[in-house]
């Protein structure tokens, strides 16, 4: 139009076009060839790798946590069970804005302090971010409904159903059974992550910890096909979880209850063993705590309240409380003295109320010295030294035996060691020796130290468990049956190898010492100063035979000549009360150690607790065997 005269070279133009279009067609062929090469590379060379990745995409293993083994007491009472609970879980990775999610959540649920803290902690932590971590437990139906109605605007949170450990006896068995706790980041590094996938708790204390492997069971898996959003489309393969083994304990809930009632709110510990098996019949530490809230996480304030409590409720006094044994050590000193020839059944000393080492001015007083001006127990043989708990007799005996003999022989009764099979957290106490003192104190052992050791004072420390073990060894006449919590978990071999004897001790020596201990409880109706120390408190109406020994451990040193007046000193500085016992004397079925912190005199305060525990155990057994009228009336009163 613009140029009027155009002579077009049609043939030439067509020629140019054909040239270009041919080139274009070749280019297209090359490009398509390129595509085929690329696709061929992906589909042939990399085929296997991509098949794997495609399967990885869609196949997921969903852990099916096993149901944890139950824990039963000796009479089949459940001590640890699993209850279904719905919990609010948080998947930190899916949270877009923590503040927004928190605000939304608060509007739907009543978040307690502990839950808020956990959410904050989870948001910060690095490990396991993709995994759901519990935030709130035991949601009610209403809470679940309110959450589900709002779940679209609460990304990163979900409600899951889970079995949660529960301890129906709560504080009563807390220190005996132990408990599980939530798996922490720290635990995560130590455990086999595969075995614990899907499991949120791990045994942290006591039986729960020691038998963790058996209780845990075997994790199962669902191999599922998921879509890109993680929704399960179908289950391809399934491995059913293996439930954990149940554990049967020797522990007897009735004895725990009896001990708990007898303690009457006082601080201390009770341990009872079955001498023939070593089975732990009772293990109580007071004050105690309810382990259940720990499973779902305590708030920081509740936790610090427990931790900082002056009464130390979390502290397991029965296994870890270390105290001077006081006079409860005397039967052992006496036994060693008899066997080693430093004492005889009939040998007597004259007790004026004090003992003095040659060339020293310090007086080692007897316990009744301040109360009676005349002082002393008079003529004392070894049984009287036991049933009157005469200090001077044992000052003298210990002094003559010397520390080396005492230390090496006391060792045979388990002092300074943890004999228990399945209580690794139990403390070993302290059995002093010359070597120990040089090493620990940098000082030489003094003869005065040996004198003090004679009545269980000075450096020696024992736990209630150790005293119960030692009492059981006396009950067994020397056979050592290590303490054990769980029945049927140990082969004969294990038990045999740890089943030893303290050594060859003649019968007369046993009869002398055990006879003395029996008199502690049963010798009564005598003139003043001739009754067994515990008779007035537990011996008057006892329907079976019991051997016992009281002890009173000093908390603070009382300087020489100072009058010890309980009413004037702070309760916390009062002496600890001890009592060890076993019964029936002829064929012992139970051995007990009782410790009352700042409890005062052992016979007066600790012995009734021991009696209550033994009653709870023996009265039933004995009444089943034979039914004396006296005992029957006792049982019916109970």
């Amino acid at each position, binding site marked *: 139009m613009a140029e009027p005269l155009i002579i077009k070279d049609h043939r030439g*133009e067509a020629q140019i076009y054909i040239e270009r*279009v041919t080139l274009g067609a070749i280019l297209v062929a090359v490009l398509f060839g390129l595509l085929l090469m690329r696709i061929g590379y992906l589909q042939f060379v990399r085929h296997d790798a991509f098949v794997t990745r495609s399967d990885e995409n869609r196949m997921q293993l969903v852990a099916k946590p096993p149901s944890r083994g139950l824990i039963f007491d000796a009479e089949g009472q459940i001590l640890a069970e699993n209850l279904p609970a719905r919990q609010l879980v948080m998947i930190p990775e899916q949270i877009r804005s923590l503040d927004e999610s928190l605000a939304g959540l608060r509007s739907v649920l009543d978040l307690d302090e502990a839950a808020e803290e956990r959410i904050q902690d989870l948001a910060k932590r690095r490990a396991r971010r993709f995994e759901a971590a519990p935030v709130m437990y035991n949601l009610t139906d209403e809470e679940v409904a309110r959450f589900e109605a709002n779940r679209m605007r609460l990304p990163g949170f979900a409600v899951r159903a889970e079995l949660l450990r529960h301890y129906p006896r709560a504080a009563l068995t807390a220190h005996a059974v132990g408990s599980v706790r939530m798996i922490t980041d720290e635990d995560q590094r130590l455990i086999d992550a595969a075995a614990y996938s899907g499991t949120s708790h791990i045994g942290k204390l006591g039986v729960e910890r020691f038998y963790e492997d058996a209780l845990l069971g075997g994790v199962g898996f669902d191999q599922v096909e998921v879509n890109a959003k993680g929704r399960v489309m179908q289950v391809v393969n399934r491995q059913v979880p293996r439930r954990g083994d149940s554990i049967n304990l020797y522990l007897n809930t009735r004895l725990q209850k009896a001990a708990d009632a007898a303690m009457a709110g006082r601080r201390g510990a009770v341990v009872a063993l079955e001498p023939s098996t070593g089975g732990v019949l009772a293990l109580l530490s007071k004050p105690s705590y309810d382990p259940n809230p720990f499973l779902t996480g305590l708030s920081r304030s509740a936790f610090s309240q427990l931790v900082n409590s002056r009464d130390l409720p979390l502290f397991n006094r029965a296994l870890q409380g270390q105290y001077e044994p006081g006079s409860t050590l005397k039967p052992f000193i006496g036994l060693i003295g008899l066997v080693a020839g430093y004492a005889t059944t009939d040998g007597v000393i004259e007790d004026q109320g004090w003992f003095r080492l040659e060339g020293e001015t310090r007086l080692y007083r007897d316990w009744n010295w301040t109360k009676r001006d005349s002082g002393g127990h008079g003529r004392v043989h070894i049984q009287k030294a036991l049933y009157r708990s005469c200090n001077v007799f044992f000052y003298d005996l210990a002094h003559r035996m010397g520390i080396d003999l005492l230390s090496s022989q006391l060792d045979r009764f388990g002092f300074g060691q943890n004999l228990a099979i399945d209580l690794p957290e139990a403390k070993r106490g302290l059995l002093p020796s010359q070597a120990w003192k040089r090493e620990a104190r940098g000082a030489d052992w003094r003869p005065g130290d040996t004198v003090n050791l004679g009545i269980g004072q000075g450096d020696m420390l024992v736990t209630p468990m150790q005293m119960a073990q030692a009492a059981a060894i006396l009950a067994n006449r020397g056979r050592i049956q290590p303490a054990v919590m769980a029945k049927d978990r140990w082969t004969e071999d294990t038990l045999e190898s740890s089943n030893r004897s303290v050594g060859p001790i003649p019968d007369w020596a046993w009869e002398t010492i055990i006879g003395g201990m029996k008199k502690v409880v049963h010798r009564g109706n005598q003139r003043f100063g001739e009754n067994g120390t515990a008779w007035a408190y537990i011996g008057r109406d006892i329907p079976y035979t019991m051997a016992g020994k009281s002890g009173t451990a000093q908390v603070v040193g009382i300087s020489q000549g100072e009058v010890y007046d309980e009413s004037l000193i702070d309760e916390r500085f009062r002496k600890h009360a001890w009592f060890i016992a076993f019964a029936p004397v002829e064929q012992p079925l139970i051995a007990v150690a009782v410790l009352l912190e700042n409890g005062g005199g052992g016979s007066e305060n600790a012995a009734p607790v021991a009696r209550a525990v033994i009653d709870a155990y023996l009265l039933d057994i004995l009444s089943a065997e034979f039914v004396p009228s006296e005992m029957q009336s006792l049982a019916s009163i109970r």
Partner: protein
Amino acid sequence: MSFDERSMSSTWGIALGRDRLLRVLRLDPMLLVIIMVIAAFGLVVLYSAADQSEATVEAQITRLTLGFAMMLLIAQFPAHVFMRLAPWLYLLGILFLILIYPLGTEVNGSRRWLRIPGVLQFQPSEVMKLCLPLVLAWYLHERHLPPRPKHVVVALLLLLVPCALIVLQPDLGTALIIGGSGLLVLLLAGISWRWVAWSSLLAVVSAPAFWFLIKDYQRERILTLFNPERDPLGSGWNIIQSTIAIGSGGLSGKGLLQGTQSHLDFLPESSTDFIIAVLEEELGFLGVVFLLLCYSLLILRGVIISVNAQDTFGRLLAGSITFTLAIYVFVNIGMVSGILPVVGVPLPLVSFGGTSILTLFIGFGLLMSIHSHRRIML
């Protein structure tokens, strides 16, 4: 629709079909058969890609039918009608592109759609895909070929105006494709190789400058191309999942409806831009080879139609339509296979989608028109 065997057996030259119906309808039997094979194959793949949704397949069939009707309609008019309309259509297209600014609706931060409430909505850039080759073919038809420099400049201006408007929407991918189809017309018109060489050199040299001009998300796409694993759950997701789908397909694929990547939603856009990955996963290498073969035949037929066109307009238009289709196929499969950055280009005749099918069939209609309204010479 029956179809004469003799037209099949005829040589790849001028169609000598004796089928009167097809001749009356002005349809090229060869082109028609190839289109229908690809479309049918595409429907099968779409059925699987859309998780056996019959509604999706029916919607696609509706669009194909509509497109077919458009093709039939266009084919009835001789090509010179479109040549005469070309400048006006072009101006109308430009007008639509400008109207976007006051009237367009914004979706995902860019204005691509023009909506006439209650009547229809469309992308003006889609209209321009045909208007630009039309106007350039019209413009160069009147001039000597190879074009003189000043004609090249005018042609480039005609090309740059709509491209610039589309870039501003912003829609860089479409602008590049439309610009490319325009340049194709110039190349086919016989523009001097020296020019081509110089401008290619210029493009290469100025490429680094573009790096700073483009937007962050575009830069991200290019970086992702070289290393998809740098953000496997974000920008790299699409390409990682599509290569897994392709690679796990192997020689013969996992079987129709058996693709795990697509049916478990790992593959994004599985019925639209990434549909080829579904085909490759389920039908494997054999499926892709078959589809590429069909496309090659389609392109070959288009080339033959263009070579047989009677005038420059017909040649350039047919060539441009044909090669643009080739570019679409290459860019789409290239992007899904991880050799080109991800741009929103559908796979012709197979991807689920409305406007692009219509544009495609209008293009086919133009090819039919160019071919069937020839006066046989020689």
